[in-house]
Each structure stands twice: as C-alpha cells, then as structure tokens.
C-alpha cells in the first residue's frame, strides 16, 4: 500500500551554480501539520514553491498519495497556497475572491454561494462578503486569503509565512485559529516560517532547514529537547553549546569537569571531541557551597527578568553559560552572585557530534 500524504524524493533546485534546495527527501502524512523552519535564505520558500508547482525542480520527484505529480502544472495540482503578501485580487469583492476557484471549476451558482457563505462563516466574516478587499483590516484579509485557498477543497494546504506581516498579538490569535481550522478540516498542511515559536506551537512535526538541506525532522519536543546537530540546537531557542570530550557511555568531560548525561551516542570512544548542548532551563544556579556533582564554578555576570523567570549569564572561567532561575531563587542567590556553581541537571542535554 502506498503511504497517503505527500512524499518528496531527492528534491533539488539550482539557479546556475547556486543550490537553493539540495536533495530534500521527506514525508508529510495525510492530515498532519508540518512546519518548514529555517533562517532566511535556507531554501524553505523555494521548497514550498516547488511543492506548489510554481517552481520546477532541477531533480527529484514529488508524490501525493503515491501519484507522481512532479510534472503536473500548478493549476492542475489542487494544492492551495496562501502567500506572504496574501495576493488577494483587489478588483474583486471578498465573496468573489473566495469563489474564484469555484468559478474556474464551473461550480453551479447555487452551490458556489453555499460554499462561499459556509467559508465566510468559518472565518467569521459573514457580514463582509460584499466588501472590497481594501476595506478589510490586516487580520481580516488574512482570513479571506485562507478561505479563498480552502474553497477548492485542496489536497494540500501550503502557507508561506502568512502571519509575518501581522502584529504580535494578532499573530498569536491567528496561529490558534489556523491550528483549530486545520484540525477541524483534517487538512494536510505545510507552513513555512522563520519564527521558531510559530513552528513549535503549530506543527505536528517540524522540518528544520539550513543551506537548502534538511537538518532535522521531528516533533516540536524532539527538535527542542534532542537537537540533531549544533545548527538546530543553536537556532531553536537559547542553548548552551559546550566543547566536551567523551569519557564513557554516560559521562563527558565538560571544561575539565565530569558531567553525567543521559546517553553518549554509540560508537564514540573515550577522548572523542563532541559538543554538549543544554537548555538554560536545565541549568540550575546555586551558591558555590551547595554545589553537588555535575557542577561548574562561575560568577554571575548579568541578570535580567524575562517575564516570570530570570535569565542569568554566568562567567565560568571566561566561558559564558546561560542559565535560568525563578525570581525567588535569584533573590536568595543575589548575595553570593560572585561565587556560584552552575548545576547541570543530570541526564539533561544532548551530546552532538556535528
């Protein structure tokens, strides 16, 4: 049986000598919400445009439910796309925008009107059907662009940074709406974003891209807790990357101290240089005399309150570690800020070999 959903096999796109997308293979199971996450210029938008059929791949294949669509032109794919600039038709009303794909498919007028009013209700803009696009607010336009894309009942729902133009509060709100809508309609969805928070809150799974290559594919907690390499660890959230050396299957030497970790990847012999990555929230800052094992001595060089927690920068012999503390803990610690220990939570963190 062929897997249902989208499958990319060795997709590649080059412009002259520049490789925008380099050998990307991945699967998006039916009904899943997948985020392509990466810095600007990592090839994520080019990849999405190839999926949409707006860009022809230099090599590789694209299959939907086992069917090869590599050579199928965009207008025959029935993949909906929401563009960063929205690209609503300014010369049409809201209703006419939403009905456009239905008109192309010669859907009868009554059925068309039924679908449009259904979609208007879905995006909570039932009263705005006869308005012109320019009379809508940013968030309303956003919703119209989504409704227009959904009218054709697409096989695949593609979104290219659709929320990046909205202000933070509205973006938050739209993220939730988008997720609810996707779950309600069980749409196979791909969203491109450079905003890690957006990717972590929206996606069933995340594809991290850099330099046109897939860096890691995994669930948000996988990506966050178990980054596959230094790039992913550094790109997502705050992260401490420490040079270390393998001691045995459970221990590393980090900056001259023995640190216990959950597991050292198999096949690494004693003395192999690795990178130890650990999140600030897995680092406990304690007065020097309270230090137990898994601790590095240091001095608090900088502290700032970030919401309900305090972010601490600790100078460990010239090397900086970012840690976190609750305001109460930080208040208790403030007196001995010059002689603290950085306590790495045993078993936390990841050993990276690349």
């Amino acid at each position: 049986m062929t897997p249902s959903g989208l499958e990319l096999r060795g997709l590649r796109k080059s412009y002259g000598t520049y490789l925008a997308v380099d050998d990307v293979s991945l699967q998006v199971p039916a009904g899943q919400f997948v985020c392509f996450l990466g810095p600007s210029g990592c090839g994520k938008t080019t990849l999405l445009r190839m999926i949409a059929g707006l860009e022809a791949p230099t090599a590789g294949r694209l299959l939907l439910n086992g069917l090869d669509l590599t050579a199928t032109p965009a207008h025959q794919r029935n993949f909906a796309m929401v563009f960063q600039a929205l690209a609503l038709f300014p010369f049409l009303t809201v209703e006419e925008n939403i009905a456009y794909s239905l008109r192309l498919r010669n859907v009868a007028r009554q059925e068309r009107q039924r679908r449009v009013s259904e979609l208007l209700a879905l995006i909570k803009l039932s009263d705005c059907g006869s308005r012109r696009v320019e009379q809508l607010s940013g968030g309303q336009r956003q919703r119209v662009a989504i409704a227009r894309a959904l009218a054709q009942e697409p096989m695949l729902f593609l979104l290219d940074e659709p929320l990046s133009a909205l202000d933070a509060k509205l973006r938050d709100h739209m993220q939730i709406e988008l997720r609810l809508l996707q779950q309600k309609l069980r749409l196979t969805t791909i969203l491109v974003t450079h905003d890690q928070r957006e990717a972590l809150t929206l996606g069933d799974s995340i594809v991290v891209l850099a330099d046109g290559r897939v860096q890691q594919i995994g669930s948000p907690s996988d990506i966050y807790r178990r980054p596959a390499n230094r790039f992913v660890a550094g790109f997502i959230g705050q992260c401490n990357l420490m040079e270390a050396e393998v001691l045995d299957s459970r221990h590393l030497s980090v900056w001259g101290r023995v640190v216990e970790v959950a597991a050292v990847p198999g096949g690494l012999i004693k003395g192999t240089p690795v990178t130890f990555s650990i999140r600030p929230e897995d680092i406990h800052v304690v007065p020097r005399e309270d230090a137990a094992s898994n601790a590095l001595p240091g001095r608090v060089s900088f502290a700032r309150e970030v919401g309900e927690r305090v972010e601490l920068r600790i100078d460990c012999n010239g090397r900086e570690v970012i840690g976190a503390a609750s305001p109460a803990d930080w208040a208790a610690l403030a007196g001995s800020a010059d002689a603290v220990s950085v306590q790495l939570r045993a078993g936390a963190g990841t050993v990276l070999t690349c």
Partner: protein
Amino acid sequence: MLRVAAWLTWPAVVLCATVLVPFLLLLRISFAAPDPSGLWIPVVTLDAYRGLLNREFAGALLYSLAMALLVAAVTVSIGFPFTYLMTRLNRRAQVVWLVFLLMSLSLSDVLNAFSWQVMLSKRGGFVSLLAALGIVARPESLTPGDGAVWASLVYGVLPFAVVTLYPALSRLPPEIVEAARTLGASPGRAFRNVVIPMCRGPLVAAFVISAVLVLGAYVSPLVLGRPQSWTLAVLIGNAALAGHDVPRAAAMSVCMLVAVSLLGGVSAWATRRR
C-alpha cells in the same frame, strides 16, 4: 503658504500658454472668412462650419474615428501581451528591449511611411514573400491601400502603447498571478482573469493615446492611402496648404477636437472607480 500657492499656479500658466490660448485662436479663426492672399479676414461668420455640412466631411470624420479605434485596438492587443511578457524577463533584457523600442521612435514619420511603401510595393520583400508562400497568387503592390495605412500606423504607435503599459505591468506583483495559478487557473486564464483587470486603467490609457495619435496621423495616410481613405488630418492639411482656406481647416480641427474630447470622456468613464 502664499509662496506654495503661487507655485501651484504654474501648471495653470503652462496649460494656458500651450493649450488654451492656441485653442481659442483656432476657435476664432474657424469663425473667420478665408483670405486667398493671406490667412484669414477677421469677420464673424459660420461659413466654414456650413461648408462642412456635407456627406464627404461626415464620412471622413467617421472614417478617421473608426480607423483610430481599430488601429488602437490592434495596437493594444499586440502591445499588452508583448509588454507583459517583456516584464517577465530579467532587468537587463527589459532595458535592451525598451531602448530598442524607443530608438524606433527616433525615426521620422516620413522615413517610416516611405519605408513601408517600399516594403509593400510590388517588388518589396513582403509581397514577394506572400507570393512565394502561395498566400497571394500574383505579387501586386499593397500600396496605396487601407491595410498599408493601418499596418504603418500600428507600427508607429506601438512604442507609445508599450511605454504607457510598461510601468503598471512591471509593478504587477508576480504572486497575484501565482495565486490564480494555485487556485486552478491555467496561464492563459490567469492572464485574462487577473492581469487584464489589474491593468484596466493603463490599458484604457494606452488605447486612448494610440487612438489620439492615429487621429492626428498625417504622413502615413497621405503616402500610403488612397484619396478616398484620407483621414481628417490629411483633409485639414489639404484645406490649409492646397486650398488656402485656413478657417475651413480650423473648423475641421475644432470638430476633431470635439471628437477627441468625447473619446477622453468615454475613457474617463471606463476607468472610473466602481
């Protein structure tokens, strides 16, 4: 504030000097009597207009208008897809094409008309080609003839249409066409459904500019056309130069201006915001 207001009268001054004063002069002459030994005799009479109340003049006016509309329609139909596809090229190629196009404007009308006459003559390349392809049985000169006039006029006004359309089309966001494509529109369908409505204003502008230029065309109809298909501009020229009847020429010009104003009014109505 006063200084700003003073500057703002400048457009009015320029328009007065270049449009209003010449027009009033023209209007005045159209009500004068012809002077065979000079230009005009300063009396007030409707003779010049009365002389235009005949079938011949009405026919020429209608023919000129119809030809202007036809040539403008052909020009825009050729120029719009041309300009659209040109704006999809890279910057460098676009500049080359634009320079090439503008260079063709630097050729004089007279040279253009005579070049067309040579090309469409019995021994010109085009007619021989048609004969060789079996499209015409025997090579025969295509000038003088209406087709020759129309073709040379399309050639002459096409660059103006392209230059009028170019800014709007080069600013057309590509994703608006791509959006139509992902919604199920073939490239041709997207062009008709999206590109054309997005450029309605510039399309009308290009059409009007082409039509007005054709209405004023003098050399092409004179050189390439038969006397019965001479346009108003040729008749005006003949009245003033050969007939020494300047008031008659002025009256014809006033009629032509009225026709052009009507065209402008219709186009303003066509591009109004709904």
